[in-house]
C-alpha cells in the first residue's frame, strides 16, 4: 500500500444543501482506493462532520451513489484511478434529488415513484403452497430476469435527462421495475402495471437518450425495459384494456 507524499489527490466536495458550495481537500493517494475511501478519509481525518451515506461498501445496497467528476456513480466500487482527472476529483450529491446535506440526498421521491409505477408484486390466484413452474427460457421470465437485478442506487434517476427536465416523470428505475413486474407470469394484475405506467408521467415520456443504460453500475438497460412498456401499453391501449 505505498503512498508517497507527492502522490496527492485534490478533492472538491459539495458542502451544505442546495445552496452550498465546493470545498477543497488534499488526500493522499493509495494503490487501492475507491471514491468512498476518499470521502471516508476526509471525514475521518480532515472534516469530521462531512455528511455522506454508505452501507454495504461492496456494491450491493446502492446507498453510496454520488456525482463524481460530473457523472453519477456508485462510489464504493469506483477505483479512484479510473475517474480522477490529473489527480482531481469533484464529488457532489446525486442530481435530480433533494439534497439533505453535503453528499446525502433524500431518496423519498425515487421510492415513491417506484410505488407509483406499481413496482411491486401483486399475488396471483395460483396455489400458495407450491411454487409456480416457470422455465428459465420462457420469454417473459427472460425479460424479467434481464431487468430484475437493480440495486436501486438512484444512479439512473440522477442521470436521466427527462427527470431533469420534468420532475414528475417516473424515471428509469421505477419503470424498469415495472417492466419486470409486468413480465412476471405469477403476478395477479399485470394490466395494472400498464395502467400505472401509462399516465401522463409514465413510460411514454422517455426519449430514449439511454443515459440510464450508459451509467447503470450493474449494467442493466432501463431504456429497453421502458421501450417494452411503451409497446405493451400501446397494444393494451389499442385493445382498450387500459380504460377497463
Amino acid at each position, binding site marked *: 500500500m505505498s503512498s508517497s507524499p507527492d502522490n496527492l489527490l485534490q478533492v472538491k466536495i459539495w458542502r451544505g444543501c442546495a445552496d452550498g458550495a465546493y470545498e477543497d481537500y488534499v488526500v493522499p493517494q493509495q494503490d487501492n482506493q475507491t471514491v468512498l475511501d476518499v470521502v471516508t478519509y476526509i471525514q475521518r481525518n480532515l472534516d469530521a462532520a462531512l455528511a455522506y451515506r454508505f452501507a454495504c461498501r461492496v456494491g450491493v445496497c446502492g446507498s453510496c451513489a454520488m456525482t463524481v467528476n460530473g457523472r453519477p456513480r456508485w462510489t464504493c466500487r469506483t477505483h479512484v484511478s479510473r475517474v480522477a482527472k490529473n489527480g482531481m476529483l469533484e464529488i457532489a450529491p446525486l442530481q435530480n434529488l433533494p439534497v439533505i446535506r453535503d453528499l446525502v440526498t433524500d431518496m423519498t421521491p425515487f421510492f415513491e415513484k417506484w410505488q407509483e409505477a406499481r413496482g411491486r408484486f401483486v399475488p396471483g390466484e395460483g396455489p400458495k403452497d407450491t411454487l409456480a413452474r416457470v422455465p428459465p427460457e420462457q420469454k417473459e421470465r427472460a425479460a424479467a430476469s434481464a431487468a430484475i437485478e437493480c440495486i436501486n442506487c438512484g444512479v439512473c434517476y440522477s442521470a436521466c435527462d*427527462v427527470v431533469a427536465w420534468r420532475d414528475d416523470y417516473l424515471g428509469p428505475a421505477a419503470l424498469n421495475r415495472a417492466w419486470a413486474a409486468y413480465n412476471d407470469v405469477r403476478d395477479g394484475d399485470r394490466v395494472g402495471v400498464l395502467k400505472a405506467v401509462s399516465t401522463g408521467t409514465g413510460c*411514454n415520456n422517455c426519449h430514449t437518450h439511454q443515459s440510464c443504460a450508459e451509467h447503470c453500475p450493474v449494467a442493466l438497460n432501463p431504456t429497453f425495459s421502458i421501450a417494452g412498456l411503451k409497446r405493451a*401499453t400501446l397494444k393494451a*391501449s389499442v385493445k382498450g384494456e387500459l380504460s377497463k
Partner: protein
Amino acid sequence: MTPRLYLLQRGTAFVMVPLVITHLVVIMIAVHGGLSAEEILARTRGSAAWAIFYSVFVFAASIHAGIGMQAIAHEWFGLGQRAAAIAGHIFILFLLSLGLRAVFGVYGL
C-alpha cells in the same frame, strides 16, 4: 405523454419513413437531375396521386411536429402541462392549414 399521443407521434413517424425518402428523392432528381421547375410542375400539376401523397405528408408532419413541440414547450420552455398541450394543438392546426394551402397551390386544386 399518454399512449394515445405516443401512438400518434410514433405512428406518424412510421408513416413518414417512405414519404420522407420519396420526397428527398424527388428533390434530388429535381435539383440535380436538371429537371426545371416547369418540367416538375408539368408532371405534378393536376396529379391526384401527388396531391394525395403530399396531403398525407402534411397531415402526418403536422401531428408529429405538434406533439414534439408540446414536449419541448414543457421540458425546455417551462410551459405547464396544460398550456403545452394547448400550444401543441394550436401548432398542429397552424401547420395543417399552411401545409394544405401549399398543396392546393402546387397542384392547382
